[in-house]
Each structure stands twice: as C-alpha cells, then as structure tokens.
C-alpha cells in the first residue's frame, strides 16, 4: 500500500511574549492511500494545530515547527518552501474548514470563487470547462446545478458545507483535511454528509484526515483513529480494533463518554474528571497521569514510550498490555 502522509516526531510551539506553549509534542502517524483517519481530542488538545502545521497554514511569526511530515513518500511538507507548498495546495492537498458559512467570501458568487481557485493551477482554463467540472462535483455531493450561481448567504449550512467539499475536490487531490467540517451542522445533516463522503471515497480513491472532537464522527466515517490529548497522540490504530478494545485509559474514557449512535450498548455514559494540563510547562511523566484513575508512581515520573501492538497500533501507556 502506498504511503500518502507519514508524520514523524512533529512538534509545534507557539511563542508568546512571556512563554512558550507546546501545542503539539512528538506526534507520529502514517496514512496510506485510501485511508481515512480521524484525529479526536477535546477542544484545546492541539488537533487543529497539528492539521494547520501539516498544511503550513499557521502564523509563521509566532509558531515554531520541528519534525517531518512526508507527503507522497518523497516530499517533506515541513521543510518545503512556501512556493513549493503553494504548488501542492489544492492540487494534491486540500482542506474543508469548520464553518462553511464563513469559509467563502460573502460578496462573491460561488462561480467567481471557484473560477479563481481553479485557475490558480490552471490559469488558462475556460469558464465552461470550470463550470462543467464544478457541476459534476456538485452532483457528487447531491447539490443542484443552480448552486453554482448563488451567493453563500443564499444557501443553508448543509448546502454550504457540501459546496465547500465539492470545491476541495476541484483538482482531485490526494489528501483532504476536514477540520471539524461537520461540527456546526445538525446531527441529521452531519450524518447524511458523512455517508456521502464515505460513498464518494469509494469511487475517487481519496485519502482523508478528519479533525473532530466527536467520537461518533470517527466511528461513522473513518478506518483509522488517532487520539490526541494535551498535544500528544496517546493512541493510534485501526478504528475497529480501538473501539473494540481501547488500550489507553483516556481512549477508554472517550469511548465511554459518547452515546452509541447505532444502538450498540457501551454501558453507562461517563465523563472524565479534571481539566487539560497547562501546555506551557513540560511534563516529566505521562501527560494524562493527573486525570487517570489508574495512575501509579511510575506514571508521574517516567514518560511512557509508544508501545507497538498488532495491526500497526501504538499506545503511549505503561500498562497498555494490561488493559
């Protein structure tokens, strides 16, 4: 299987006047062609920061990134120049943002914006050509042709989100990042769109990263999962393995705290007590130890390394095997 993205030892640090905030620490994961990986975590866990760093959309003035993110087996996104990166954008990597309502210019028609975006890489493309391409994509996301000539405010949230997805597909990219792309929608619309995305992927053979705080989104639309907490990936692996038997106490907590959508019974709904730790101080032991009900002395003193388990699963817990 072909590797699309391999992230190695990625660190993202925000510099403010008075302190450094270690927003992402030692992140590592691999996505193969056709994979769909959900990155889950609470708000502030650094999942969006991770995505923005890979996409090189962070504010360069205040952010420092180290590590590697190898795209398509040979190009490192982190060390690449902005010009080279611009070449990749939308052609090979595209993104769908959280609030579709705000992710398009309110005073331009969809047509104008699509034409401009399309022509970044195909400057000579004719209007008819672009129109044809976009309308075929609109069909793919179950939208009527007339959407092409509307203004954003003339559409509903669901329509806009579908439009944003269609726009992200313009150049048939290898990788699409969905940054909380369905969060602002109501549950029914979200479910429909997720279904459509999964359907689409079968025909387009695309690879996807799904940034979300919602375990059910991952359950419905991903085959891989990365659980993020306070800037660290605590557990990565196949969705079916991890949902069946989570090996990190935090993952266990997360799975227990979301209601099963498809009737499966996961026992009592619980929440994890405590808050996210301060990201401006580096932590000696396990990052989750403060909130972990199984934490022992070792957990506070020694950082757990990734334990590789079957099916490419990695767990950062001293007691992973015992879970």
């Amino acid at each position, binding site marked *: 299987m072909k590797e699309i993205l391999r992230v190695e030892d990625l660190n993202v640090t925000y510099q403010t006047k008075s302190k450094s905030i270690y927003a992402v620490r030692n992140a590592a994961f691999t996505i193969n062609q056709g994979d769909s990986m959900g990155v889950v975590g609470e708000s502030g866990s650094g999942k969006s920061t991770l995505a923005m760093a890979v*996409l090189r959309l962070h504010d360069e003035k205040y952010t420092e990134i180290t590590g590697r993110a190898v795209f398509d087996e040979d190009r490192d996104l982190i060390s690449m120049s902005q010009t080279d990166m611009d070449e990749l954008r939308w052609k090979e990597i595209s993104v769908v*943002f959280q609030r579709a309502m705000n992710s398009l210019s309110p005073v331009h028609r969809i047509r104008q914006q699509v034409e401009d975006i399309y022509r970044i890489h195909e400057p000579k493309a004719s209007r008819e050509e672009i129109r044809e391409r976009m309308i075929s994509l609109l069909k793919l996301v179950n939208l009527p042709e007339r959407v092409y000539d509307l203004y954003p405010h003339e559409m509903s949230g669901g329509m806009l989100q579908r439009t944003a997805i269609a726009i992200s597909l313009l150049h048939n990219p290898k990788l699409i990042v969905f940054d909380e792309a369905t969060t602002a929608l109501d549950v029914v619309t979200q479910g429909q769109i997720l279904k459509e995305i999964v359907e689409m992927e079968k025909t387009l053979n695309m690879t996807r990263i799904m940034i979300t705080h919602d375990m059910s989104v991952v359950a419905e639309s991903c085959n891989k999962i990365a659980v993020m907490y306070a800037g660290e990936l605590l557990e990565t692996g196949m969705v079916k393995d991890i949902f069946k038997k989570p090996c990190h106490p935090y993952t266990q907590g997360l799975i227990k705290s979301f209601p099963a959508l498809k009737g499966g019974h996961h026992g009592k709904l619980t929440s994890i007590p405590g808050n996210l730790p301060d990201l401006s101080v580096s932590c000696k032991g396990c990052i989750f130890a403060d909130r972990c009900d199984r934490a022992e002395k070792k957990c506070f003193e020694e950082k757990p390394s990734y334990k590789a388990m079957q099916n490419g699963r990695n767990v950062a817990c001293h007691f992973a095997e015992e879970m």
Partner: protein
Amino acid sequence: MKRFICRRLITGILTIFIVFVLNFLLIQAAPGSPVTTLMGKENHDPEIRAMLEEKYGFDKPVIVQLGRQLEMLFHGDLGDSIIQNRPVGEMIAEKLGPTIVLGLTSALLALIIGTLLGVMAARKEGKPVDMVVSGTQYVFSAMPQFWLGLMLIILFSSNLDIFPSYGMTDARADHTGINYVIDVLYHMCLPAITLTLTLIPQYFKIAKSSVLQVTNEEFIQTFKAAGMPVKQIFRKYILRNAILPTVTIFGISMAYLLTGVMLIEIVFAWPGMGRLMMTAINQRDYPTLIGINLIMAISVAVVMLLVDIIYAKLDPRIRYE
C-alpha cells in the same frame, strides 16, 4: 430591495418632517412673538407685519399655522427673508452651486486618499509607516477645520504666496471659458485641501479597521489553503469585502461634511451657503437660518438614501433582508 428603499425613504421623510416641526417650535418658543422673530429686531414696518401675519396666519391656532407652513414647503416656498427682502429659497439656490462643487470635490478626494492610506496602514500594521500615518490621522481628526484653513492661509498665502486665500475667482480679471474654470480650480486649492485633510481621518480609520477585520475572516484561510497568491487574495477578496463600510461612512459623514464646508467657506470667503449663513447670523436673519437648516437636513437625508441604495447594490447580502 423595494421594501428596503421604502423603509429608508420613510425614515428620510420623517427626518425632514421632524426638522421642520423643530424649526416651527423653536420660532414659537423663541423670546418675543414669532412675527417679530421673522421680521428681525430692527424692523417695525406695520405693512410687513400685516403681510406676514396674513401669510403665516399667526392669528389662527398653532396647528393651523403648522399646516399652512407645511403647505408652503410643499410648494417649495421656504419663506422670505425680510432683511434681504427676497425669498429664502431663491437665495439658497444661488449659493448652492459653489458649495456643492467644493464639498463634493473634497469629499471624493478624502474618500479616495483616506481609503488608500487606510488600506496601506492595515497592510503595514505595527510598522513605523503605520504608526506615523495613524498618529497623523489622529491629530487631524482632533483639528478644528476652520483653524486648519487659517493656518494654511498663513503658510501658503501670506508667506509662500502660492495660492489665493480669498474668493472663488479673481475679481479683477474677467475670465471666460476654460480660463474661468482654471481660475476657479486655482482658488479652490486651499479650501479643498483644508476640507480634504480634515475629512480623510474618518475614511482612513474605517478603511484600516475593516481591512484588518476582513484579513482575519475565515474565508481568507480557504484561499490561502488553495494556494492563491497573497496579492490576489488582497486585491480581489479583502479589498472587495473591506471597501463596503467606507461607502456607508460616506453617508454617515455627510452632516460632518456640510458643517465643514460651511465653516471653511467662511474662512476662505467662498461664495457659497456658508457665507449666506454667516451673514444671516450677523443680521439675525432667522427665516434664512431656518431655510438653511431645512435644506441641510434634506440634503443629508437624500445623500444617505442614495448611499444606502448604492450599498445595497454593492453588498449582495442586503437585497434579501
């Protein structure tokens, strides 16, 4: 769209009506009887008094008087200046031209320069250029317009002798045709510069803050993520979105602009409505002052209505609200 214009139209008409009623009430409440107020203090001619009483119906109840004056307004009659012995409407109409020329020129110049400066300052936010320009604008916004005019006269007329400080044309030379236009433009330099300089800060402020705000909008991220060059994002998307508020300011600042024009006209002896107003104040010619007040309210209402319609054309979001 139609409903939107209708609503604005009603507010506009209401504004004019309220100004009219306020004027009426002020004359009623002023010390001395309304007739004496309209006649002027020095005038005791019983014939004129009888004529005014007849015309305005001062012996009738107040509400009838109001109705009668409203009727006069509908016929375009703004009353008569007893002191000048002429209809106020005619006097204002004569002076309207120079005021509009000066006001419009300066307002357009200020709109263009202020917006450009604001956009530039926003792009260089926090850098020395921005700090200097923003600081200067702040000082200019605190400056009395007439004072700036006087200072420019000291500098450019008295000391450097570059520009004329007085009037709209050279009275000694009797220019015609293109020479007349050039002469007017030459005389307009100082008053227009003064007015423009004091109007720029408003456009500057709004242009700068709206560019900064739009730059932080989420849709800008979409275009960045699509690899669109920063210049194109700025030209096509940030500017188009950020320019809209400056258009509304053009309407809102109309009242400020008119005040400025009037004061500046007095400084530079520009033969417009400002001069008319100054004379009317000195002679306590109340019918003229009331007429000017009403004309000002009407022009502001008309301009604001126009600006609202233009804005609705520019911003697709308005049409369906």
